[in-house]
Structures are given as C-alpha cells and as structure tokens.
C-alpha cells in the first residue's frame, strides 16, 4: 500500500510542474494586457506603460519570468495580486472556505440523490422511473448553469419568496468569521436565527452546483449497476435464494461502487469549474468568482497561482480517491 501511495505521489510532481507551466502560459496567451486593464479606460501613457512593464517584470523573457515564478512558489510565495495588491495566498485562504462549503454541500446532495436514483433506475431498467430519471439526468447534465441559477432565483426567491436571492447570510448577522465556513461560524456566533439564515442561503447555489454532478453520478451508478447485475455471481446469489435487498446491497452495489467512487472523485474538478458560474450568479464570495474577476482583469499573478492552488487541491482529492479505490478493490494495489 505504501509503495502504491509513493508511486501516486511521484506522479504528482511532474503534473504540478506541467500545470504550473500551463497556467503560466494560459494567462499570457489570453488576449489583453494586465497593465492596460489596471489603468482602466483612461489609459496610460507609453512612458508609464514601459515603467510598469519593468516594475512587474513582464518585459523579461518568458523563461526567466516562469523560473522566477516557480522559485517563489517553491518558497510558498504565490505573489501579490496586480489588481488588489493583496497576497494571493491570503485572498485564497479568505475565499476558499466559502467554495469548499458550497462544493461539499453540493457533493453531498449529488451523492445522496444520485446514487439511489441510479440504483433504482438500474433495478427498474426500462420502466417509466428509469426513463424519467435518465431523462432528468440528461437534462440536468445539459443545463446551462447560468440560466438554471437565474431561473431558480426568479421562481424560488422572486416569485415564492422561499429562499434568499444571493449572499452567504442575512446582512443583519454580523460577526467575525472563525472558520470561514458560514454554517459553523453562524452556530459559533450564538446569534439566534443565524444558522437558519446561512443554511437558507446555501439552498439554491448548492442545488445549482449539484445539478451536473448529480446527473453524472446517477448515470454512472445506473450503468455500473447494470453491468454488475448481469454478472454470474449476482445470478448465483439470486439462485441461492438471497433476499433481493442483500443481493443488490452487498453483492452488486459494492462492486458497482468502484467506478462510481472514481466518478465522484472526478466531480471535484467539475464542482470547481461549476463554482465559477454558480458563485458569480449567487454573489457567493468564493474562489470561482475570484478567478473570473482575475481573468477579466488579466491579473496574471492571481490566475496562474490560483489555478495552481486549485489544481493542487483537485490532485490531493484525486489521490485520496485513488487510495479509497485501492481500499475498496485490493486488486488495484497488487497491480
């Protein structure tokens, strides 16, 4: 197991360098210019432009810029945002809990609804339930997040008045964050109604962010279950007279879980991507909105460092999934 883990960790090192290079190149390949974006519509004189170029070091060869950047990152210095002049790591630390909280709740929704829906659709293959579930899943998978979010706001917040439109908690609740996770902080604050307010603010963005992963998990679970249900050992278990619940729960689902766990792990990347739009719609102060703003301002430092930090997190989650995978399926360790 330790060897397996070391092998996986060794693979991460070149991946991190590859991603850092890709992030560095990506932001520079974007049309636009951070100095002009910073200067705004008033513009900047050619002399001042040259000065700022020198100051930021963007007139140096790309190789030098990259090596300097990587050198700083290796010492834990992710740089200072061009737009806000604040340290990137500090901004990330302030904003990440909001994204993590939203993504966690969204993932819980996706798993708790997606897996049972997939199992039942597989058991009732070809039934109206199967067709309806897969139809809804396909719709959910194809749903443009921006439109879907706005639709939910208009209906549930505007028309029914059941949920708040946006934000993380009612503005009447003001307390200094302790953990950055609003559900926990609202409980710690001891303010009456704060937790309820924080939870109600999570409902719509979590549903929107969960939609695509839920659809993917449901479809994957169904497909994995169908494959397993056709296996000889399942037929044998049934022939032995085991209760259907036991056959499905113990024999079929455990084996079907392997690709499902992989899919759930991969959804972390989807959640991060989905967070960009979801956070923008719901004014959710997380790293998705932060990255979008930084791309808009061509804030090279935030984009390249932000992408790298996000990639590191996604890789860490995937590593955990790989380990879980090995725990569920011992054959993986042997291979």
């Amino acid at each position: 197991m330790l060897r397996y883990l070391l092998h996986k960790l060794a693979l991460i090192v070149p991946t991190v360098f590859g991603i850092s290079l890709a992030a560095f190149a990506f932001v520079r390949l974007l049309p636009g210019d951070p100095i002009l974006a910073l200067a705004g519509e008033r513009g900047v004189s050619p002399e001042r432009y040259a000065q700022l170029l020198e100051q930021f070091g963007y007139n140096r060869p790309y190789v030098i810029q990259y090596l300097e950047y990587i050198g700083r990152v290796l010492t834990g210095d992710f740089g200072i945002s061009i737009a806000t002049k604040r340290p990137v790591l500090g901004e990330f630390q302030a904003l990440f809990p909001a994204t993590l909280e939203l993504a966690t709740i969204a993932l819980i929704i996706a798993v708790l609804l997606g897996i049972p829906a997939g199992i039942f659709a597989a058991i009732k293959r070809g039934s109206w339930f199967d067709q309806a579930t897969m139809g809804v899943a396909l719709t959910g998978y194809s749903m443009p997040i921006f439109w879907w979010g706005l639709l939910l706001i208009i209906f549930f917040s505007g028309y029914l008045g059941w949920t708040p439109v946006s934000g993380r908690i009612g503005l009447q609740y003001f307390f200094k964050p302790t953990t950055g996770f609003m559900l926990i902080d609202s409980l710690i604050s001891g303010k009456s109604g704060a937790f309820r307010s924080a939870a109600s603010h999570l409902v719509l963005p979590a549903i929107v962010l969960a939609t695509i992963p839920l659809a993917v998990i449901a479809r994957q679970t169904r497909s994995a279950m169908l494959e397993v249900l056709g296996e000889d050992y399942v037929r044998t278990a049934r022939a032995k007279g085991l209760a259907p619940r036991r056959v499905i729960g113990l024999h079929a689902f455990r084996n079907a879980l392997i690709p499902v766990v992989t899919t759930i792990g991969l959804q972390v990347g989807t959640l991060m991507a989905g967070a960009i739009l979801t956070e923008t719609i719901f004014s959710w102060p997380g790293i998705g909105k932060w990255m979008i703003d930084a791309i808009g301002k061509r804030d090279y430092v935030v984009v390249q460092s932000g992408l790298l930090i996000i990639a590191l997190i996604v890789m860490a989650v995937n590593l955990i999934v790989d380990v879980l995978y090995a725990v569920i399926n011992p054959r993986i360790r042997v291979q």
Partner: protein
Amino acid sequence: MKKKLTFAAALLAASVIGGMANAKQLVYCSEAAPAGFDPSPWSGGNDFDASSRTIYSRLVEFEHGKTTISPGLAESWTVSDDGLEYTFKLRPGVKFQTTDYFTPTRDLNADDVIFSFERQWKKENPWYSYLEGTGWEYFTGMGFPDLLKEIVKVDDLTVKFVLNKPEVAFLPDLGMDFASIVSKEYADQLDKAGTRQQFTQKPIGTGPFQFVDYQVDAVVRYAAWDGYYGGRQKIDDLIFAITTDPAVRAQKLKAGECDIMSYPAPADIAGLQADTNLKVDEQEGLNIGYLAYNTTMPPFDKVEVRKALNMAVNKKAIIDAVYQGAGQPATNPIPPTMWSYNKDIKDDPYDPEAAKKTLADAGVKDLSMKIWAMPVSRPYNPNAQRVAEMIQADYAAVGVKAEIVSYEWTEYRERGKQKDRDGAFQLGWTGDNGDPDNFLFLLGCDAIGQSNYAIWCNKEFEDLLKKGKATTDVAERTKIYEEAQVVFKREAPWLTIAHSKVFMPMNKRVSGFVMDPLGIHRFDGVDVTE
C-alpha cells in the same frame, strides 16, 4: 476630547457588531468588489463609491447632483490673477475618524493635504510605491505631475498650490476622487508599525461614514461618523452588498434584500418600474457614445465622406432598439446637460438618399470598411455589437459594405489607437468633473495615440481648446467651446450616436438619494423610513 472620541468609536463599533436592533440601515447592491479603500491608486467607479465618497472628503466637493463645486475641507480659496496660485483656507476642527485601529491626536491640517498629493506625485515619497505596481493613474492621467510646481504650507490651516501653467479645470479636478484627503498622522502610525498595506485595507478619512468591516468579495460595512464636519448622517449603518450580476441585483431589490442598486440592465427597467414597492429615478447621463472615423485614412480623410456616412445612420432606431428608449440622439461631443452645450447646432439628418449622392459626388464607389464593436457594455453604449449591426445595415442601404470586428477589451482599445486602423471605431466617454474640456480633450492633437480614436488634429479646434483652458471667465469659455462644437460638427470626426439615461432603482422607503451626473453613488443625506 481624544478619550471622548475613542469611547464614541468603541460604542459605535459595539453597536454595529452587536447588530443594534433599531439601527437605521441602508443596503446598497453594488456592482463590483472594491480593489481597496485608498481612494487614489484605483480608477473604477465602484472603487470610488466604496472609498472616496463614503470615507473621505476633498478640499472642494461637487454639489449634490450637480457638476458645480462648493467648499469642502477648504472653506474658502483665492486664485492669483495669473491663475498660477490657488490658496486654500482649511476648515478648522475637521476630525479624522476614530476607530479601533486609529485614534487621531489632531484635527485635519495642511500637512494632510500636502501628503495626500505628494504621495501620488513625488517618487522619493516613501508612500509613492507603498503598493506594488501602483501608477496613481488618475493623478497622472489628469496631468497633475506636469501641472503642479509645488504645494506650500502657509500655516496649519492654509495651503497653497503653485501651478506651472494656468488650468481652468483645476478646482473641479480637486473635487475628483483621486484628490481625496488622507491622514498623514495615520500614515506615520502605520510607517512606525511597518504595516503600510493597512492604509488601503483599514481606511481613515474625514467623510460621512467610517469603515467597519470588509468581507472580501461579499460585503462592506460602514457606520455613520459622528464627528463628520457636515453633520452626522441620518442612517446608522451603510452596507454594500456586492452583487455582480445586474439581473440578480434587480431580484435582490425586489425581494427587499437591498434598498438601492446600481446599473440595472436595460431589460430589467420596465419590471422594476412596475413594482409598487420600488421607484426608479432617472437622469440624463453625462456621457457620449460615438463612432470615430480614422480621419487619416482614405476615404475617411474627406469630410464629405464622413458626413455622408453620418447621414446614412438612423440614430433614432438605435436609441429605440439598443438603448430601449433610455437615451437621446447625440449631436455634439458634449452632453446637453453640460454648460457651453451649443444647442443651435443641427445634427446631420438621417437621409440615405443624400448620403448615397454625397458618396458618389466624392467619388467613393463600392466602399468596404470595418465597424469596431466594443466587447463590453457601458452606460453610454449598452450593446455595441447590436449598434454595429444596425449601422452595418444602414451602410448597406447606401451601398457601403461593412464588416464588424471586435477584440478583448484592452486589446480593442490598443488596436483602436493605431494610426493605420482600418474603419470606424465605437467608444464613448463619461465625464469626470463636469468641465467641457473633460470631453473635448478627447479630440485634441495631444490625445492622438491615447484617447483621440479619430486620429483627428484640426488646428482651428485645437486653438480653441487651448484658448478655453487658459480662460477663466466662464461666459468667455462658453463662447469658445460653443465655437469648438461648430468646428467639430462641420468636420465630423465622429458619428455622435447617443447620450444615455442612467437609472437608479430603489425601495420607496429610501429618501434623499440624489443621482449624480458624474456617475458617483453618494449616500450622505440619504434616509430610510422604517
């Protein structure tokens, strides 16, 4: 006094943090997160709303809802006969805000004024580069480094600005956000503590509200400053709820999650007007949306070709379709609400037949050109792509084939400045300080390669521009600028498209909010009924 103020600040902070039940609160749904709370390094309207107009004050202030200036931190001033010396008498007893992170030991004085400008001006000032890569773009863009000769402390409450050349717009310039006055004493305190960065994160000013807290990208909280020289505000708490999407801002306003919002989408305005809980104030914007020809490239170097193309465009249709009626066709390069606007000038008529004939007379046949469409929405042009499509159709009707091009926003503006740029370029301008020169300078010879996208240098116009800047008498300046507008219309370097209206939707319980022609969102004097 110091103890009293500290106690007051502590009480205020405690009441805010504790969420005092009966505090009067105003929630403003703002369009973007502020980059910081120092009013001078940044140039975005949202940055100014969150810093200079709430926390700080200036020597002179724009009158609420007007572009005329009135005394601010300076209670009076004199200008020397040659227009080179401005001496300001500071208002005595002006208090800087007392917070849990700063307790002032003295009132505002000339040192604060000098520091506020020198930190943006003198590279040897340690605060010049306290933020990495700060260019003090507004200070530089308004020409202050060349304009200022020296700033002299005459006494504690008297400060003299000596200029290198007369500048008639100097006083309105001092009412702009970058000219906000900051505390030197606070800067010195941070210097000693080695925490200069805090200057923009935990601001101190003399304005109507004091900073309480900022949750990055989410909420900014302010409290009324009891020691404000203009008197304590009627509301206790001011909250900026940062909401980037205009449709979501509108939903929040309808749901009562905010009391007032900025920049509604044109498509949402009718719905907001129909809501019985809301009112939608509107005002003519101090702006212009235009299409600049490249006057150095044939055939656009011929006045008659530019005139013919102007006559080919149905501006009314554009106003109806793109501005959804919330605008008016533009005739002059300055908006009608601005002093010196020449109302005697007649716009080029919409006359496709005359356009066709003029083009033929000019020997222009089978003209192909580019129309540049901005990739962003602005109050002066909410949908440049749609405007380009409509102009393209109008041009086609007179036999001109046009291709629409667009680029990323910063690249768009850079490419537009190129002297060999092909085609006509859409852009616009919103006034900074209410002075006509702040619009007409866009067409000055010095602005070629910067803001003169028509690449138009006309001696007659340029002379008038320079004369206007050196004339102090307003009546005389009015005549000069009226004449400049005649030259502009005759030479037609731009197709003047529209001046838009600006809307400010708010809950009916909000009173006292005055729309500002300069696009500033000010909350001093605002009240809410419970």
